[in-house]
């Protein structure tokens, strides 16, 4: 199963198209006011990445869901706008309870606090168990890396030599 396209070029393709759309001014926001350009580019980046990934990852589904709802400001990061466990997911408290191992004497840095933080960071991370969250985080990091790489390449391409 060779993959000549890959995530990177799928993302780049979609993102470049969206950039050209943004630049030709044909993007209309669902909100009343117009978004500043950098904001719409940033959202376009996340949306393109989520589109390139598709719906097989929880985080990409969540991003697409957020953009679909038109929550443009939040579409890039936060989960707090949306009801937790919207799809009736299992409570994350279950996993947290079991994970309070005695070996973690690290109460100061609060592993649970960090888990919460990670859940907030990764889109769609609220309603899943911790190991699932870690898997999503890994994929999310990978996609973020390609996203940053492509955007940087584009920006470098456009900067004067």
């Amino acid at each position, binding site marked *: *199963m060779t993959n000549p396209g890959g995530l*990177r070029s799928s993302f780049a393709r979609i993102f*470049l198209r969206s*950039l050209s759309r943004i630049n030709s001014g044909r993007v209309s926001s669902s909100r009343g006011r117009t978004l500043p350009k950098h904001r719409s580019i*940033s959202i376009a980046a996340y949306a393109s990445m989520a589109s390139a990934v*598709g719906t097989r990852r929880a985080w990409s*589904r969540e991003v697409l869901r957020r*953009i679909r709802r038109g929550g443009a400001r939040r579409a890039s990061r936060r989960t707090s706008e949306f009801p937790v466990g919207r799809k009736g997911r299992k409570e994350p408290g279950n996993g947290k309870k079991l994970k309070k191992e005695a070996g973690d004497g690290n109460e100061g840095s609060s592993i649970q606090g960090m888990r919460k933080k990670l859940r907030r960071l990764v889109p769609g991370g609220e309603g899943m168990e911790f190991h699932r969250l870690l898997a999503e985080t890994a994929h999310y990091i990978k996609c973020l890396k390609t996203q940053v790489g492509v955007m940087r390449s584009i920006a*470098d391409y456009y900067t004067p030599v």
Partner: protein
Amino acid sequence: MDTTCRGNVGVQMDGDGNLSFPSSIAMPSATSVEALMISKASVAPHPIFSAGWDSLVQFGHHERMGSQIEPFGPNHLPAGNQVTRGSDSFPFPGQSATDPGLAYFGSGNLSEAVVGSLSMPEFMGISDSGCLPSFGSYMNDAGGRGEGIRTSECHDSDDDTGRKSPTNGRTRKRSPDPRSSYGPNEAEKKQKHEKDECPSVPKQITRQSKYESTGEEAPKENYIHVRARRGQATNSHSLAERIRREKISERMKLLQELVPGCSKITGKAVMLDEIINYVQSLQHQVEFLSMKLSTLVPDLPFDAGNPLPMDMNSQNASTTTMGLSNPGIGSFQNFPRGMSKGALPISLSAAQYLSLSQLPFDSELHALYQMGFDSNSADILKPREHLKPEQ
């Protein structure tokens, strides 16, 4: 199967890219499991996401995403034509928004062109016949449960004789494997790995299942066969906990490889901290680069069929259609690679600004660019609040 489903959501192309992710797990059949899961999950969510996508507000990616996810709308064949037409016009930089390719995009069928560009039109025909029937029957069997992907992944395995198609890979894998590799830890881990993708499975049943090997016939339940290792407690609670811990540590190892500079870190707390910081820094970088891009552009209309090649750094600007080979665009400081965000001086002098007018812009774009530049430079020069997370 994966290649035939290329045009489906465009995720099959990503399937192999993502296969590199689970392959770092030291499990023998992990890649096939993941492949099957991926291919299945890519087919599964269609009924969820295809509903109502078209009615979305036409913001940027809405129709792109929506139609892209939808299975083969009626336009996918014209999309193929559209893409090829666009590629013919690639050497022409000055095409404005009246470019038929772009106009086609603007009409809300952008994703069709995307899908068309991802695969040949004949692929779409193949995948149309290949993917949808199995997908449709699969969803019927799953009973159209409300949980969509979750539940469909938890689909029981009593179909396994009839459903050897890869769309059902996850449940297929479970039933033959326990019998064949009941003892080794890898099989155990794999089953647990699969099992935990289905959070709806109650723990009780999982624990009981280790005493019986006939768990597969239960409707809507997944059984994971776990064998207690020598010298360890066989209490069902501790067993389940051990499974979880193992899974988590497995994934933490994976993450360690992804996050740079974490190979020496042991311990969950520090590791989690590093992961969080890394994700935050990546997100900041995205914000930052988007700000950079918003000032850098004038994006000339891109051709759909042949976007910038990936090794853009090696490309000579003048060779492409972008027409930005002039150095006078702006004194935008070239950023150091890496995570430092540095200062971002944007001093576009009048002389440089004038030089922009010499570019072969469409008049419309030119006006837009002028307006954009004024407002964006003001935005950029604000203090760094944009780079902080919006919390």
